[in-house]
């Protein structure tokens, strides 16, 4: 039972946290033909855009209501109206997803009321879904913005269903947390399909941000789940939520449509994957394909090969709660000691992180804890690179953003195969570090005596003649 505390510092140094509005925009990026719109000054969208572009190496759609100082004084209605109209006219989106920012929240803009006014004034917008989510910058963090936004999508976009009507037994709703990559979603999709289940991912960033080459250059998302498909999600037999951040969305789905849900807080590791596969086997009524039997064996074997290297490592990890919980639990299961854990926002899973204490803090906290607790493996998003370099410990990039290496979108850590590959990556990182920094030398085990007594010259004997 970890004790969860929040940093008392006035100054956050080397932030781990990102703001919740862009977490919300990120969720909208998993919808087809979507334009995420940040209601705030243009810098908010610009920073967010840059962050996503650097992580995904993709053109990313994101717009802003471009609130300036004067507009802020007057309230955001006019800018919101103009933004929606401009987007509607220019890019013909299938949906506009709006998140508030610190400025408009401080201002107290009643955006839902604005939207009603705008719809009244512009009947051509009647069929354009507009989803608004309140996500002030000065509260919560990235994963909260994502979670709230998905919950709100369900409230606005999923059609209510007649509880009496039979459900489609092969359909499954999947509500992935923002810590899952496009690669993770692709892997899950394959697994679902191997059980002959038809998954609807909400959102589906794999469809939109996996790095495909579009035929034309569109300003909205390409790929992702369509608004039409979202509307019918109430017909699915099950909802699977991944990560505690998605519990509320799953509950709303259940309340709205009666679709039961199962929450998987972890999908990395042997036992979490076992549970997941067993559940799919159960709801699909199909036995587990031999592919997964073999993958399971391969994972078990990888655990055996790698535990020599990972076992006993002292891990310092900085990540948002669900990713922190997933990866730290997995590494604990591999024999590592979770020695320093820092996160961005509160969550019920934090208490269950397998460590002494979890700090809601920043990368300076993580660096200091890692140093004082003698950690020898650091994991965080790319910003942790500076700390790892100062500490001279191996560094594994996890989560968002990952801007200094390629392939962030395809890193896969879910399921037997994803876990297996992650294990090899970590073990090889540690092996490389050992070779580079910890090879034995004559001075590796210095004499405990204060000064080493060397041969005293007086001891040198007369040279003898050779015998032979």
């Amino acid at each position, binding site marked *: 039972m970890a004790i969860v505390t929040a940093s008392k510092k*006035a100054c956050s140094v080397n932030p781990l946290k990102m703001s919740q509005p862009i977490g919300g925009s990120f969720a909208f990026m998993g919808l087809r033909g979507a334009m995420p719109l940040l209601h705030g*000054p243009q810098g*908010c969208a610009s920073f967010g855009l840059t*962050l996503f572009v650097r992580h995904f190496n993709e053109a990313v759609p994101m717009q802003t209501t471009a609130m300036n100082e004067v*507009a802020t004084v007057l309230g955001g209605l006019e800018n919101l109206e103009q933004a929606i109209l401009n987007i509607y006219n220019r890019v013909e989106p299938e949906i506009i997803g709006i998140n508030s920012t610190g400025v408009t929240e401080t201002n107290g803009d009643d955006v839902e009321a604005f939207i009603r006014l705008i719809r009244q004034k512009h009947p051509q917008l009647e069929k354009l879904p507009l989803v608004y989510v309140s996500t002030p910058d*000065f509260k919560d963090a990235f994963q909260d913005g994502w979670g709230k936004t998905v919950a709100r999508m369900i409230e606005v976009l999923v059609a209510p269903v007649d509880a009496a009507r039979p459900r489609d037994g092969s359909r499954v709703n999947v509500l992935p947390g923002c810590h899952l990559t496009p690669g993770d979603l692709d892997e899950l999709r394959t697994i679902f399909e191997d059980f002959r289940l038809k998954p609807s991912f909400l959102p589906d960033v794999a469809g939109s941000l996996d790095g495909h*080459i579009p035929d034309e250059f569109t*300003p909205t998302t390409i790929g992702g789940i369509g608004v039409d498909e979202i509307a019918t999600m109430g017909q699915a037999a099950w909802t699977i939520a991944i990560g505690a951040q998605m519990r509320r969305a799953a509950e709303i789905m259940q309340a709205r449509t009666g679709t039961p849900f199962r929450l998987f807080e972890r999908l990395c590791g042997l036992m979490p994957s076992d549970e997941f596969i067993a559940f799919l086997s159960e709801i699909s009524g199909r036995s587990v394909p031999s592919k997964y039997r073999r993958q399971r064996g391969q994972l078990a074997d990888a655990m055996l090969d790698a535990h020599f290297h990972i076992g006993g490592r002292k891990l310092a990890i900085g990540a948002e709660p669900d990713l922190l919980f997933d990866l730290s639990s997995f590494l604990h299961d591999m024999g590592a000691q979770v020695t320093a854990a820092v996160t961005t926002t509160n969550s019920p899973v934090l208490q269950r992180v397998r460590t002494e204490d979890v700090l809601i803090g920043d990368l300076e906290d993580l660096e200091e804890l890692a140093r004082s607790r003698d950690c020898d493996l650091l994991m965080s998003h790319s*910003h942790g690179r500076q700390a790892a370099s100062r500490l001279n410990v191996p560094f594994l990039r996890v989560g968002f953003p990952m801007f200094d290496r390629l392939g962030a979108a395809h890193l896969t850590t879910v399921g037997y195969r994803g876990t297996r590959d992650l294990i090899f990556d970590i073990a090889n990182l540690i092996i490389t570090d050992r070779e580079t920094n910890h090879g034995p030398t004559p001075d590796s085990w210095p004499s405990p005596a204060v000064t080493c007594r060397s041969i005293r010259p007086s001891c040198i004997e007369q040279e003898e003649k050779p015998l032979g």
Partner: protein
Amino acid sequence: MTLLPTTILDVFNEPGCARNASKSNVERKNGCTKQLKPGGAAGGCAFDGAKIALQPFTDVAHLVHGPIACEGNSWDNRGSASSGSDLWRRSFTTDMTETDVVFGGEKRLYRAVKEITEKYDPQAIFVYQTCVPAMIGDDIDMVCKAASAKFGKPVIPINAPGFVGSKNLGNKLAGEALLEHVIGTGEPDYTTPYDINIIGEYNLSGELWQVKPLLDELGIRILSCISGDGKYREVAYSHRAKAAMMVCSKAMINLARKMRQRYGIPFFEGSFYGIEDSSDSLRQIARLLIERGAPAELMERTQALIAREETKAWTAIERFKPRFAGKRVVLITGGVKSWSMVAALQEAGLEIVGASVKKSTEKDKERIKELMGQHAHMIEDMSSREIYKMLKDAKADIMLSGGKSQFVALKAATPWLDINQERCHAYMGYVGIVKLMEEIEKALYNPIWDQLRQGAPWDEFDWKRQAKTVAQMDVQVVDPVRGATANGVKTISFSNRSEIGDGESAIAAHGRNLVEPAKPCTNSTARGPACKDTFSDLQPSALQAAE
């Protein structure tokens, strides 16, 4: 709410601003305040601009007062290089909470300064104002003053909250803050007749170090670089320089002008991109220094060095000429670099078929026209979709631009090179231009383009769809100059009226070569003046965020 009216108006009225100077009164009023279009903008804000301008000061703690978004979403994203402290790479923010918003954030800010002082003891702390605390009335000037007095250390307020305007405005506000609080507050150990300031140079990928050895060789000392690899103390005594070079014509013109005004430091606008520009800049530096009292022999030495370096560079570039023959370049920058880049590229035999002039002044444009000839295609503001089509239609062989617009080129399977701040190569001076040519050659001749221009052999369907898509795009694009379409062969005017195969069939046959290489755009004589405004009414898109 603090509207910062004085400083901002002051900056808006910048008489040193070439753009302003060339504008009508009406334009001038609107120009710099340029109301961004909601739903059609994606550029950086004033805070972003201020941070860009100042963050390269390496021994300063840069503290952002605001909610997590401003700093948490943006730190550690630029490639300036430091030869000393790495303090500037650490990120500091007050990460304001709801409580701070309700009760005011000044106390938290003060405590943040205290924590930084205790833990990192920096040469100075720069405190950046952002929108939310500006809205709730946090007085950072007051806090900085109090903290400065308390901790005996410069704590400098940078008043450029995002919503006051653009990135460019932020650059200038940063300059104002330096003028008001830093410059003239220190003295160098000694001065020489060879001391210069370099203003608006950020040492991206360490490129200042491509030029500094030349200055060293001439005995010219960079007294202060604002702000690449800069140190607080050096800015503080930068008023003792004999002359200054303004590297980037927009970013901190106000700073250069006011330093001339206050301290009598003459400056020139120059560039180290390209051979001739580099030589010009060296000569200008020598000239100004000699005017301020340096021995005249400096010019002789400068000319000798220039002669030597030019010969070497020209020789190095010579080998690229056959490789670059007939290769056409589109250059999309924030505008300020365009003319100097154009010259550099032409030096190597590349043909410039288009250059962005969105942020360029009329004078810049004149210069570009002069360099590129009558047929210069100046891109005022072109949508991503437009550029995509242009590249798909094989109107250019390579695009050079900033990182955010890269996908327009790449997804059109067209070579692209980053010439903005995120690039990892240094392109300055005589060695840098050769490096740039190397990179262009690598990009042009990389075999991936041939592979990527082909569709999957198993996917006939895909190709049909693509052809259809391109046709749709033609319809969507508002292009008054576009010629008539008939029977699948049509005349498209892009930068000229030369007749070429249409995009569809060119692509379908992977037929970049269908475009007759002997007839590049600038060979046409039918280019009318209308062309340059062809796309100017289109919505800006991702491109606007470039730079």
